């Protein structure tokens, strides 16, 4: 019995507790990230944004949550019921699942797997199914058109994100997320992080991440002037909320990925005294918030792309540049003697 306890039950309890803690922290942060998104957007347009519920509108997201939960979910008569209800669940679960491998501090993650980067990449390539399933099951023209657009968009930009990740992997020499952060730990501090040597790739990653998460200026999936609300047009109440949650968690994942790949994860900006006193998790959160601020500003200041421009940017601009960068980076590492020792 003791063996059963030590080898099965106790690890199970530990990992469930860790996962629950992570989920609670993540969901509360998402509530405030959503509020921050609306506040930043409002500030750019010289509005106040949500400011009624709670002090400075701080409880707005929770009020929205309650509103969504208590509304009646409507399932359209012509829809494919099972797939219709499965789609938001798929989106939400996959988005949350990606956080299992993200290290927010040295050793602070649920699972430090060998192929962490690939795992996140695989999860983000699965995210398209939530949208396609929703678009098809809704049995509506707008939803279906949006699903088709979204699938093409996500598959296209995944290619360039893949190449960006490959260049970072070339420099770091490991697929472990914690290893990638450790590889950026140099005596140059923030100038040793990969954003500087791989600056073009950082820009491509940022723009592709916007496209991958269907954020403005690439939110053609939900372009309200042409597609009403896109694939979500038939959804309301809790299923809609799950889509929204999944979308924001995916954005948070992309911010965390940008932080880990290019901004040195939990490392302090300079490896000297006052900076090293601050816990790593605070640096991680600050950097992720900086990434999110960039996302929110793009939403506020950039007009929406046309669909053919979007496709052109992905295939004719980003793909050649990132392909060339993979070759250049590999050549520099190999012939400059900088390649990581495997």
């Amino acid at each position, binding site marked *: *019995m003791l*063996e*059963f306890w030590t*080898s*099965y039950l106790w690890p199970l309890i530990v990992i469930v507790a860790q996962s629950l803690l992570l989920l609670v922290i993540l969901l509360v942060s998402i509530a405030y990230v959503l509020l921050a998104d609306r506040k930043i957007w409002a500030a750019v347009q010289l509005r106040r944004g949500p400011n009624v519920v709670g002090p400075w509108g701080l409880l707005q997201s929770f009020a929205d949550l309650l509103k969504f939960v208590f509304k009646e979910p409507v399932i359209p008569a012509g829809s*494919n019921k099972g*797939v219709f209800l499965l789609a938001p669940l798929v989106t939400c679960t996959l988005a949350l699942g990606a956080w299992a491998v993200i290290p927010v501090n040295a050793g602070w993650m649920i699972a430090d*797997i*060998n*192929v962490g980067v*690939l*795992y996140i*990449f*695989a999860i983000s*390539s*699965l995210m*398209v*199914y939530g949208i*396609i*399933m929703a678009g*098809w099951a809704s049995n509506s023209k707008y939803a*279906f058109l949006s699903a*088709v657009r979204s*699938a093409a968009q996500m*598959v296209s930009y*995944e290619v360039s994100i893949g190449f960006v990740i490959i260049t970072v992997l070339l420099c770091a020499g490991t*697929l472990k997320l914690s290893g990638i952060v450790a590889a950026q730990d140099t005596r140059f501090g923030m100038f040793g992080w990969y954003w500087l040597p791989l600056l073009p790739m950082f820009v491509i990653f940022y723009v592709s991440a916007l496209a991958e998460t269907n954020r403005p200026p690439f939110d053609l999936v939900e372009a309200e002037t042409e597609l009403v609300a896109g694939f979500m047009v038939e959804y309301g109440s809790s299923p809609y909320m799950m889509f929204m949650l999944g979308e924001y968690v995916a954005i948070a994942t992309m911010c965390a990925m940008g932080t880990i790949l290019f901004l040195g994860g939990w490392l302090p900006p300079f490896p000297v005294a006052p900076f090293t006193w601050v816990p790593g998790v605070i640096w991680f959160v600050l950097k992720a918030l900086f990434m999110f601020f960039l996302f929110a500003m793009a939403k506020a200041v950039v007009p929406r792309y046309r669909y*053919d421009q979007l496709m*052109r940017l992905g295939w004719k601009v980003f793909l050649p540049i990132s392909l060339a960068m993979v070759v250049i980076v590999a050549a520099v590492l190999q012939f400059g003697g900088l390649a990581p020792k*495997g």
Partner: protein
Amino acid sequence: MILPATLLPAVFFYLFAGMCVACAFMVIAGRNTVHSVLYLILAFVNAAGLFVLLGAEFLAMILIVVYVGAVAVLFLFVVMMLDVDFAELRQGVLQYLPVGVLVGVIFLAELLMVVGAWVIAPGMPQSISAPTPTTISNTEALGRVLYTQYVYYFQAAGLVLLVAMIGAIVLTLRHKPKVKRQNIADQVARTKETAMDVRQVKSGQGL
């Protein structure tokens, strides 16, 4: 109560394998083709789970990225766009049954041979498959084998894919002479002088 150390992997193996077989069955038994593709995707994901149990985490992730993330999306597209008549599809079942049975029998025979070799000569799998070195991760092991020992085969496989890609482009590319095309360089090079023509319009006269 003493539990063998293999209990947990065994539980997960039967879970993934059972789900995989059940999903594969639903792929051919499903009435709705979109449901069939969704079951196919679930089968792929379960197969990836089996790879993880084998310790081949790189293959598992690549299976999901390539097959589920790209190939199955195209499947789903085609199936959703096409207007498939299910009744018509079902009429030909008897006609194709002998061929299907033949393929099934060949597969079964091959599987039995594999399992047979495994049972009769337990040492044989070791002689074929090189075990992963314990000191490095299997991604690295795979990379070392692929880029040193098998680099020419690897390049040849890449070449085959390139030829397939060019073939697909050649087959589908149509030059329509009357279609107006965008020239991005021209559009970007437009200035105020070339794009606008400001004129003073006299009232009552027009241009």
